[in-house]
């Protein structure tokens, strides 16, 4: 009896696979992914992971410094800081993620439109963006969130809007680089729909720098959200958003500094891991560095 030779598995070397391999060959990407996954999972499953509820008050242990019972101490109402941070992470992480997604979707749409059509459409969109960016980003964000009012959804909106001018400009610049390529001419000559050309042909060729930017932007949006909450314009206490926790802890800085330290450590760790990942992603996507 002859044994049929097992068909040799052909190693696929698709672009994505190649990219992921290059990405995770670096320690930066591995560490960044590890930290962000651990934090995200801990926040998503806060019900299981957190030792206490986010509003459980322990009046016997108010202001306690880190101990075996409360590993990061308790706050002015005897609430466990570690548990609050895990529950609060749900707000902070989703603020960063959702606002980045919304901001990028709109800015990419505008940028592609401006870059592809050129002419009047471009002038209209880009001049509008110029007016928008007459104020420094952080300032615009503060003012827009004043206009929208506090709260989770309004903060998401303010953060998304802040991204528009920069994002649209960057997308447009990428599109302009591709504008004179032959494949566009080919697509146009077979009478493709404009939308198909823009988002099936053009966009896939320019997304990589935008992806790097978006990865890092999740981090900077988390920071900006915390800043807004800190000055009282973002998410309000007693919601355990990280910035709002810092705002609450501000009053006790002289006596109980541990209340200030831990929320900031969570913010910094999250942003740090996203920056590591973004940096590694940029290197992996850089054709100059590809073997």
């Amino acid at each position, binding site marked *: 009896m002859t044994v049929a030779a097992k068909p040799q598995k052909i190693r696929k070397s698709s672009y994505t696979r190649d990219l992921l391999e290059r990405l995770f060959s670096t320690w930066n990407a591995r560490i960044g992914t590890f930290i962000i996954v651990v934090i995200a999972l801990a926040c998503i499953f806060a019900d299981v992971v957190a030792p206490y509820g986010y509003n459980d008050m322990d009046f016997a242990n108010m202001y306690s410094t880190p101990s075996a019972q409360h590993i990061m101490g308790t706050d002015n109402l005897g609430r466990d800081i570690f548990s609050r941070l895990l529950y609060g992470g749900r707000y902070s992480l989703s603020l960063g993620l959702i606002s980045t997604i919304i901001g990028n979707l709109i800015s990419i749409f505008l940028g592609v439109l401006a870059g592809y059509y050129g002419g009047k459409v471009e002038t209209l969109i880009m001049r509008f963006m110029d007016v928008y960016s007459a104020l420094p980003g952080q*300032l*615009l964000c503060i003012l827009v969130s004043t206009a929208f009012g506090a709260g989770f959804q309004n903060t998401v909106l303010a953060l998304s809007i802040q991204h528009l001018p920069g994002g649209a400009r960057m997308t447009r610049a990428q599109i302009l680089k591709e504008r004179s390529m032959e494949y566009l001419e080919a697509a146009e000559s077979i009478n493709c729909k404009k939308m198909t050309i823009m988002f099936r042909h053009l966009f896939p060729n320019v997304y990589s720098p935008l992806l790097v930017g978006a990865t890092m932007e999740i981090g900077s949006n988390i920071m900006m959200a915390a*800043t807004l909450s*800190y000055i009282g314009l973002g998410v309000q206490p007693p919601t355990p958003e990280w910035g709002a926790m810092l705002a609450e802890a501000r009053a006790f800085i002289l006596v109980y500094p541990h209340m200030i330290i831990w929320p*900031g450590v969570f*913010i910094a760790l999250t942003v740090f891991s996203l920056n590591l990942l973004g940096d590694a992603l940029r290197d992996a996507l850089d054709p100059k560095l590809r073997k």
Partner: protein
Amino acid sequence: MARYILKRLLSMILILIAAAFLIFTILYLTPGEPARMLLGGTATEDEVRTMAHTLGTDRSYMEQLGEFMINTFVRFKFGNSWLYKVPVMQEMNNRLPHTITIGLISMILTALIGFGLGIIAGTHEGKWQDSVTMAITMLLVSMPNFWLALLMIILFSVNLGWLPAYGIDSWTSYIMPIVASTLGGVAMQARQMRSAVLDVVRADYVTTARAKGQTERKITMRHILPNAAMPAITMLGGHLGGIVGGSAIIESVFSIPGVGLYMLAGINARDYPVVRTCVLFFALVSSIAMILTDIGYAYLDPRIKARYTNRKRKEEKEA
């Protein structure tokens, strides 16, 4: 070169007009009637209406916008604070020195230290200078600056007792606010400068200079720096704008009676003349910073210089 600067100045005026339009519109769209907010909950409908009439907030959007624009750009009048009834500029004059001192020193430090660290890291690629700088800047980029400021208060004011935590008493009060508003920008600038240096460090002209036996110092200063500075300088304007935008937060952390804190107070009290004036001030400072970086760029980039100095000659030739 003068033509270029003139062109940039004209664009600055446009930016300021855009900023004025933007801030007016945002405040106009902000929900809540200012007259009611100023009078408090106990005011009657009549009182609110009279107040709105005195403030002019009962008029149409275009009327209000027109008056605001003319007052700001033609008459240079910034109005009175709705809450305290004193001229906004009078209060601004007391507050400007603090904000300008912190902002100016922070901007200079951001540029100098950012470029310096980037060059050191870039010219020592893979050595300890590089790894240490990159690790520290990566950490600094990841921290919100107000948290960094709070940490500094804990360390230097609470634990060590070296520096005052609040307000402005003497020059030592400026140290922590300046450091807090500098570090983030320095870190970003250093990272961008490093990658700019890495792009030019293996260029042929650097190898040529080295082959001629030029000293490393001169190679860095004369050959690497000007070429690497060009892409990095375009980013600088953004970081300087970031310092301006962030000054409200830093001032709020350190309770510094500056323009930023005035703006935040104005936002909370719906004192629109105050908010508008402060925002315009910030827009002015950030656009000046942008222009200075643009001019610095044009000075370094012979192509831009040439475009503006040779135009006359070219026109003559064409004619």
